């Protein structure tokens, strides 16, 4: 570890410890009773107002993905990486109306998870089980992404050993994360999101203003980036990227943005955040304000180009022996800004990984304890037992994420999140479409889920990593490779598309076909406990707190 790295690391450590202590203290913030009932722990008593909501939902959304993974994609592939900006802009108009319906129906009937809603809407516990399992599994690669981001920061600061010791910093950071979410639930991330966002804004504004000027202005930076990206890669013989979209990746850009937008509010942690909002008005304002985060996001992405202009080369990860593109932004800071500032920046990025990872694992744990443990394993579980289960499951989910980091090694770690997206998109028919209509039959939804899931996972499996070998290397499929029972419908097209969108289409087609068949054979319909009015319900506007729910809905 060099002198500069030592300074960076000390400041990083101090800030990190400060935030951890804050996390433990959060347990005392605004809590009336003990944190034993699941709702208290998972939804912080359902009483967050506008500002807290905005920070919480934002703190959840913008994370190590934002600051590490997307710029790394821009660094490596160019304009395609900007899909994440389009995603941050279009996700909210798309989600605006459906999320209101989900909020209303969930508050009316006491739903806490997407699986609760599905069970209430369709009366099918098997379908709800599938939704719960999907939510848990799809969250793991997303958490894995956060861990990979945190790891890259630690490596740049000098903790880049090989072997077992090499992975130690990662485990330590994770233990901190695990401990404070274990004791405080959702309140810990909310308080820390404030601290994180403050740090992030300071760091990013400084970086965005200073760095482009330092490297010759945007004209020069884009020129340099264009030259570097258009050099042919020795592995594929093609340019590694370009500053404009190519013929092949325009559809990919649009489908990545659309697919990620559709997936966003299907994730259990998004539903958790949305349900913690006080009323419909606050929800609308929060959603409307969300794209503002993307302005910053876009500018951060452009730092990927600044890194090219700065001549940054990704650090070799000594534990795996491979170059880690996640290190480009930390390295950019390290090379061009003073060490004390870097310490701040790395702490901010580290916390940016910690907060959403915590929130995601809480939400996934919720799915386990309510929709699997209580529904199938222990029907008479008390709220305290459920909470204990959720706490345990949250640790298991984090462990699963850790395994993902180690086992799946895509070219860009952003693909970890996109792989999760392929999985969670299969719940769209049962959750999002169901908010509007019950036309799709439960059997159709189940069949569609299996079809979309199987096809999506199979296609992901076939995608090789950058060196041309291995599996689960990415998330974009060239249309020429689309193969329906041997029928190659798109000829030699090199146009690429996001696997998630294709898998969803397969899902919907199968769902419709099976629905028609189910209706023809008069298959049982299941009970819909929701009513039309439930989807428009609102909380009292003059500050009366909604009654905390002590019971899970009868399973």
């Amino acid at each position: 570890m060099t002198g500069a790295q030592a300074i960076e690391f000390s400041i990083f450590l101090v800030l990190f410890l400060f935030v951890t202590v804050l996390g433990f203290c959060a347990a005392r913030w605004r809590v009336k009773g003990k944190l034993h009932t699941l709702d208290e722990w998972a939804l912080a008593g359902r009483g967050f107002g506008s500002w807290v909501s905005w920070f919480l939902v934002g703190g959840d959304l913008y994370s190590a993905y934002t600051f590490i993974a997307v710029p790394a994609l821009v660094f490596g592939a160019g304009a395609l990486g900007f899909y994440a900006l389009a995603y941050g802009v279009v996700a909210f108009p798309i989600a605006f109306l459906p999320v209101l319906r989900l909020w209303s129906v969930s508050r009316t009937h006491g739903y806490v998870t997407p699986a609760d809603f599905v069970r209430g809407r369709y009366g099918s516990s098997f379908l709800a089980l599938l939704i719960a399992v999907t939510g848990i599994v799809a969250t793991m690669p997303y958490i894995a992404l956060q861990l990979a981001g945190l790891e890259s920061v630690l490596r740049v600061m000098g903790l880049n050993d090989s072997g077992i010791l090499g992975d130690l910093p990662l485990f330590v950071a994770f233990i901190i994360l695990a401990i404070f979410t274990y004791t405080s639930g959702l309140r810990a991330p909310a308080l820390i999101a404030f601290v994180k966002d403050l740090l992030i804004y300071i760091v990013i504004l400084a970086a965005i203003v200073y760095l482009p000027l330092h490297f010759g202005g945007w004209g020069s930076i884009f020129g340099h980036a264009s030259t570097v990206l258009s050099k042919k890669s020795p592995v594929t013989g093609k340019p590694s990227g370009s500053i404009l979209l190519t013929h092949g990746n325009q559809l990919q850009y649009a489908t990545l943005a659309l697919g990620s937008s559709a997936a966003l509010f299907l994730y259990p942690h998004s539903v958790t955040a949305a349900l913690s909002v006080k009323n419909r008005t606050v929800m609308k304002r929060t959603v409307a304000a969300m794209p503002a985060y993307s302005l910053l996001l876009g500018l951060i992405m452009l730092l990927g180009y600044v890194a090219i202009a700065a001549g940054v080369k990704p650090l070799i990860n000594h534990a795996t022996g491979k170059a880690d593109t996640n290190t480009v932004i930390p390295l950019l800071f390290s090379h061009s800004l003073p060490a004390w500032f870097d310490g701040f920046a790395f702490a901010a990025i580290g916390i940016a990984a910690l907060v959403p990872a915590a929130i995601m694992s809480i939400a996934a744990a919720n799915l386990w304890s309510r929709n699997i443990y209580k529904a199938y394993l222990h029907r008479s579980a008390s709220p305290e037992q459920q909470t204990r289960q959720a706490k345990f499951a949250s640790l298991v989910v984090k462990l699963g994420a850790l395994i993902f980091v180690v086992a799946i090694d895509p070219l860009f770690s952003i693909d970890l999140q996109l792989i999760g997206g392929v999985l969670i998109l299969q719940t769209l028919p049962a959750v999002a479409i169901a908010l509007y209509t019950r036309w799709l039959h439960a059997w159709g939804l189940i069949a569609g889920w299996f079809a979309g899931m199987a096809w999506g996972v199979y296609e992901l499996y076939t995608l090789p990593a950058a060196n041309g070998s291995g599996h689960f290397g990415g998330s974009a499929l060239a249309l020429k490779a689309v193969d329906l029972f041997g029928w190659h419908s798109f000829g030699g097209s090199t146009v690429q598309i996001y696997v998630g969108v294709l898998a969803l289409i397969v899902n919907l087609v199968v769902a419709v076909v099976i629905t028609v068949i189910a209706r023809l054979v008069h298959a049982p319909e299941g009970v819909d406990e929701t009513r039309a009015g439930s989807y428009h319900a609102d909380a009292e506007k003059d500050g009366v707190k909604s009654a905390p729910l002590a019971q899970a809905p009868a399973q």
Partner: protein
Amino acid sequence: MPASSQQESSESGAIQEGVQRSVSSPWNLLLIVPLLMLITPWFNHVSPRIGGVPFFYWSQLAFVPVSVLAMSIVIIVTRGKSDSVKGQS
């Protein structure tokens, strides 16, 4: 159980059930405007530049306020009547 959850919410008085109206506001169509940014052939150009930044990048960034504005207009125009009566879809 549907009966008891309905009882719970009316006892606490916290959640007002919405009256269902089937007409949703045409203003909601504004929410489609931000999606125009995905029609990439319209935006995939280098010039005109602003401050050295190619058209593609600054035009995509310009959609951020478009998106916020679209949603804000929808909120303002459909406010004044309670959510439960307006028939937000």
